[in-house]
């Protein structure tokens, strides 16, 4: 197509060469971007598959340097932290999203939207500092609650944006139909608009959860990590990203193996969540 065009147009040799070179560069750029993805995934699978066994999910860590053991406490800890994060992130996030989408004339809406956009850019580690100041300092020791809160704070703006975007996609006539039936605004929103937007909100929420599931930075000095079982959110709680961090920078080969297994499990979890929600949502949207 292009070649015929340029020939007929009498493009000079130099222009044709430039065109071919540009095409090559564009293709190479795409390849260069995808190469690291392949390299990382191949390495993770190669190293991680052999290191994942039942013990990984069921046992506590072995003493430093000894083979065997698992990180069961971190698998459970990550789920605990995610549950805490979800409570904060979803309640505030969906509530704010509803406010921004359904009360467009409210004077606070521009400010809320602006701040929510600003919050998205704040580095996770800074949110960790905030959670530290709010919940670790008063309690005088590291605790899981502060970790969950820091992850929840990170989730909020993503959930706000997702809720806002999908609720605005619900046509105005649907709301008007509800009002015409004499429904009050709160019932129109809760029983008509929210259910129609539900699949989009769920997608946004799942993507936000997947994103914070891999965060280690804010947990370093909030949840802190734990080598033992602990179900008390007011004490230090373990998490897979923290395990990956501390085990990768340790000098023990057996810990490196666990770190590779933990990385693979985490990436598998994040990818599965991302792809599954995309797939489900894309199908519904059609």
């Amino acid at each position, binding site marked *: 197509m292009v070649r015929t065009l340029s020939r007929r147009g009498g493009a000079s040799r130099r222009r044709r060469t430039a065109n071919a070179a540009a095409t090559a560069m564009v293709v190479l750029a795409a390849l260069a971007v995808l190469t690291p993805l392949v390299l990382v995934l191949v390495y993770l699978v190669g190293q991680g598959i052999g290191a994942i066994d039942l013990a990984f999910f069921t046992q506590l860590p072995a003493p430093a340097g000894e083979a065997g053991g698992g990180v069961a406490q971190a698998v459970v800890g990550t789920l605990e932290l995610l549950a805490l994060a979800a409570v904060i992130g979803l309640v505030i996030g969906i509530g704010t999203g509803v406010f921004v989408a359904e009360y467009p004339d409210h004077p606070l809406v521009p400010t809320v939207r602006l701040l929510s956009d600003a919050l998205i850019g704040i580095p996770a580690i800074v949110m960790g500092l905030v959670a530290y100041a709010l919940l670790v300092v008063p309690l005088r020791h590291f605790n899981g609650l502060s970790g969950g809160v820091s992850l929840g704070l990170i989730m909020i703006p993503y959930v706000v944006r997702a809720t806002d975007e999908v609720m605005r996609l619900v046509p105005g006539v649907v709301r008007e139909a509800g009002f015409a039936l004499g429904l009050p605004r709160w019932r129109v929103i809760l029983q008509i608009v929210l259910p129609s937007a539900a699949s989009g909100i769920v997608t946004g929420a799942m993507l936000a959860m997947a994103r914070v599931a891999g965060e280690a930075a804010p947990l370093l000095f909030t949840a802190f990590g734990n080598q033992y079982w602990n179900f008390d959110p007011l004490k230090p709680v373990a998490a897979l990203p923290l395990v990956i*961090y501390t085990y990768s920078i340790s000098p023990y080969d057996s810990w490196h193996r666990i770190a590779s297994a933990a990385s693979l499990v985490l990436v598998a979890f994040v990818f599965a969540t*991302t792809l599954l929600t995309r797939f489900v949502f894309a199908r519904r949207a059609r």
Partner: protein
Amino acid sequence: MDHTPPPPTPPQRPASRRLAKRRRGGFPVGDRLFDLIVLLLAGCILLITALAAFELFRGGEPALRRYGLGFLTGTTWDPVHEEFGALPFIIGTLVTSFAALLLAVPLAVGSALFVSEYAPRWLAEPVSSLVELLAAIPSVVYGFWGIFVLAPVVRSVQLAIFLSPSLRGIGFLRSTPTGLGLFTAVLILAVMIVPYTASVARDVLRLVPQDQREAAYALGATRWEVMRHAVLPYARAGILGGVLLSLGRALGETMAVTMVIGNRTAIVDGLFGQTATMASVIANEFTEANTAAHLSSLILVGLLLFLLTIVVNLVARVLIHRLTPRGVS
């Protein structure tokens, strides 16, 4: 929350009866209560932002008072003698971020062009999903890969430079061959920020009107000339917004950088030099800080990072919003 039936059919009779009953007064109680709840939840965002700024300021204030503006220009970071200057980290953050942008932006724009202009549809969709998966890999996993795969490669490059008689004399390239340092951090960072520019660039390129391309083709332009003179200039501002979004990510990126940059609290001294960034010094030292001055200095670094990333991200948003025609999501 309590009712979520998929096809919502409003209960008609009770509603119409209620309408008749409350025609004059509207639906005050339920609506007011709901308005209040939603407003309170939205107010949480204001509260959180204010609280974050307040707590960071309160935590960093002792250091700010003690070191003043010298905190920004001081080059010594010495917890033992309680002397804290953050310049090495500010430089570390800026150098790693901009170097990563330099590597990432051409690749990101190239891959966006590939996806939106060059690739056939069957290839474009999977490629753009794969690029977005790059953003889904957790930072700490990039760090893990960086330590065990990238660092050994960089180390062998360093060794080769060290052994080469012509290169070893160049101060800029001189280093201890550990594989950990600025260069490794920049490479990892570049990989991590590519998807942000790429996805914004792709969206903006798709918004370039087809007429724009056809007009250029009609003048006999080659495909590259169409891109260069008709498509890219049209999308320039939006792409810049994407670049700033990537910059915001790079400035605050923590785990991967902490794991591969070497964590030396001094100004970077060469391409492979070990140094630290604002985020990495917090991650690396916060749990070990045991003096009030050290903690406060780290929180002050956090406050700087907070302000820096807010500004960069808001400018990015403004650019993307203003230069993107309405109706894009």
